[in-house]
C-alpha cells in the first residue's frame, strides 16, 4: 500500500515536472506561434542564475523564486527585441534563429563557467516518510509551485486587462491591431513572460538536476512534444498533455525502466496526434485558453 501511494506521488511529480518544463514554451508557442528551440537554454540560464546567486551568498528561495524568473525574463526581453521581433510570421526562420541562439547561449555559458559548475545547493527541504518509503520534500514543494503557477497564468489570462488583450492578439492579431492594440508590445511582453516562466522552471529544477551548459537539450524534445500534443490552448493543453504523457512515462519507467518510459511517452504522443490532429484541446476544449 505504501509503495502504491509513494508511486502515485512519484507519478504526480513526473506530471508536474513535465508541465513545468513545458509551460514557458507553451506560452510562447500558443500565443505567438513561435517555435523556440532555445527554450531549453532558458531553463539552463535559470539554473545558472540560481547557482551564481547562491554561490554569492544570496538566499536560495529568493534566487529560485524571484531572481531566476527576473533574470531570464530580462534575457527574453532582449532576445525578443533584438531577434524574434524581426521574424514574426516566418516560423521556419525563427526555428533557425532560435537554434543558433541556443548554441550561442551554450557557448557563452561554457566560456564563462567551464564545462561543469560546482553546485553545492541541495534541495533545501527534508524528506517525507510514507511507511517504508521516503520521498523528497522538495519534490512535493515543486508540485505545489506548479499548481500555483498554472493558477497564476490562468487568472492572468482570464481576469486581467493584459490577459484579455493577449487573448485577442492570439486569436486574431490583425483585428486586434485594428482595434488599437500594439501587438508588437503584446508579443514582447508574452515572450519575456514565457522566458520568465522558463527561468523559474530552470531555477526550481537546478537543486535536483544540477546545472550544465548543455542540459537544455534534455528538456527541449519533451517540452516540444508536450506542447504540440496539448494543442493551441495554453493552459488546458499543457495540463492535459502533461497529465497523460507524464502518467504514461511514470508508469512505464517504473515497470520497464527509463528508456521504454521515454518511448512510451513519444509513442502516446504520436497516436494522440493521429487521432486528434490539432492536439487534445483542439478537439475537446475549442475556444478555451
Amino acid at each position, binding site marked *: 500500500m505504501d509503495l502504491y501511494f509513494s508511486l502515485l506521488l512519484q507519478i504526480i511529480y513526473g506530471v508536474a515536472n513535465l508541465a513545468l518544463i513545458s509551460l514557458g514554451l507553451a506560452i510562447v508557442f500558443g500565443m505567438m506561434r513561435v517555435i523556440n528551440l532555445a527554450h531549453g537554454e532558458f531553463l539552463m540560464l535559470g539554473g545558472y542564475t540560481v547557482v551564481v546567486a547562491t554561490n554569492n551568498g544570496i538566499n536560495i528561495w529568493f534566487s529560485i523564486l524571484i531572481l531566476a524568473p527576473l533574470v531570464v525574463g530580462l534575457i527574453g526581453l532582449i532576445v525578443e527585441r533584438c531577434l524574434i521581433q524581426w521574424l514574426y510570421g516566418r516560423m*521556419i526562420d525563427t526555428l533557425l534563429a532560435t537554434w543558433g541562439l541556443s548554441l550561442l547561449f551554450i*557557448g557563452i555559458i561554457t566560456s564563462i563557467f567551464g564545462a561543469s559548475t560546482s553546485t553545492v545547493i541541495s534541495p533545501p527541504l527534508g524528506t517525507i516518510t510514507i511507511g517504508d518509503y521516503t520521498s523528497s520534500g522538495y519534490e512535493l514543494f515543486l508540485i505545489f509551485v506548479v499548481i500555483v503557477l498554472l493558477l497564476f497564468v490562468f487568472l492572468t489570462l482570464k481576469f486581467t486587462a493584459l490577459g484579455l488583450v493577449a487573448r485577442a492578439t492570439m486569436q486574431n492579431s490583425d483585428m486586434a491591431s485594428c482595434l488599437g492594440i500594439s501587438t508588437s508590445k503584446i508579443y514582447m511582453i508574452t515572450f519575456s513572460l514565457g522566458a520568465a516562466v522558463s527561468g523559474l522552471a530552470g531555477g526550481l529544477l537546478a537543486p535536483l538536476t544540477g546545472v550544465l551548459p548543455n542540459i537544455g537539450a534534455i528538456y527541449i524534445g519533451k517540452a516540444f512534444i508536450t506542447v504540440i500534443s496539448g494543442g493551441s490552448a495554453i493552459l488546458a493543453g499543457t495540463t492535459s498533455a502533461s497529465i497523460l504523457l507524464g502518467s504514461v512515462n511514470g508508469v512505464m519507467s517504473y515497470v520497464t525502466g527509463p528508456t521504454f518510459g521515454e*518511448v512510451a511517452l513519444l509513442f502516446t504522443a*504520436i497516436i494522440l496526434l493521429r487521432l486528434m490532429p490539432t492536439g487534445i484541446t483542439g478537439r475537446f476544449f475549442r475556444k478555451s485558453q
Partner: protein
Amino acid sequence: MMRLYGSFRGTLVVASIAVLFTLLAPSIFQFFTIITLTQVIGLSILALSLALVWGFGGVLCFGQSAFFGIGAYAYSVAAVNIGGSTGAILIAMLAAATFATLLGYFVFYGKLSDVYLAVITLTVSLILYSLMRRTSGPEYKIGSALLGGFNGTGSPPLNVPGNSEAMLFPLQTFYVSMGALILAYVFAGWLVTTKFGRVCVSIRENELRTSLLGYDTRLYKLGIFAVSAGIAGLGGVFFCVGVTRVTPDVFSLGQSALAIIWVIVGGRGTLIGPILATFVLYFLTASLGSQQLMNTNLVLGGILVIFVLLVPSGVIPSIAKWFDLRRVKKFSKLKERRLKMRKHRSVG
C-alpha cells in the same frame, strides 16, 4: 526565378561542374580531406533529399534523419550479413523508402496538418534514437551484426560489385560516393520537371486548388515523401561508410535540425543550394573543432543568428535574386509582388 536553378538544363550544367570537381579533387585536396569528403557527401545527399521533399513537395519533414539513419543501419546490418556492399546499398534505400511509405500513409491519409507532420516525423526519429540506444547488450543482434546501442555498430567499407573480397580504396570510395551524389542530384532535378514533380510543386503552392483539379494530393505527397526517404537512405549509406561506423546519434534532434539548417541556408526551392551549404557548414564546424581560441558553439550560433537576420531566403535564391534584379527588372518586380501576396496570405 526558375532560370538559374530550376530547369533541367541547369541541373545538367551543375552536374557537369560536379563531375569536373570530382576528377580534379585528388590533385587539389590533401589525401585525408578526400577521405573525409565521403561522409560529407553522405550528409549532403541527406540535405538533397530534404530539399526535394520540403523545397518542392512542401512537406516539412523534421525527422528526415530518421530515414537517413535507417539507411545507415540497414546498410551496416545487411553488409555484415550478406558480406557484400552492393546489395546492401539497395536494401538500405528500400528499407528507408518502405518505412517512409508506412509512416506517410499513416500521416497523409490521416489528414494531419503541416506542423503536426513535422512533429510526428521528429517524434518518430526520437523514438528510433531511444530504441537504438537501448540495444547495448550482446542479445541485440540481427544475423551476425551486433547493434551495439550507444556505441553503434561498425559499417563495412564498399567493395567491387560481385567480389566481396576486393575492398575499395578511399579514393575509389570517394569517386563512388561523388557519383551517387551526382546521380541523385540529376534524378531529383529531373523528377521536379516531370508531371509528377510539377503536381507536387502545385500542391506546395496550393493544396486545395490542386485537389479540386482532380489530383489525389495525398498520393502525390506520399510519393515524393517515399522517394526522398530513399535518397536519404542512400545518404546514410555513404555517411556510415565514411565514418566507418553508425551510432544512434544519426537519429538525434541535433542531426534532424542540422538537415533543416542546411536547407534553409542553401535556400528552399533549389537542389544545389542545400548540398553546397552542407559542405561549407560541415567544414566550418570541423575547423572550429581544431582550433582552441573560441568555443565552437559560440561561433556557430552567432553565424546562424546573423544569417537569419541578413540572408533570410538562403544563399542560392539570394544570388539568383540578385542576378534577376540585374538582368530583368520587370520580372523581379512581378515576383516581388507575388511574394508579397503570398506573405499577405500567410499572415491573414
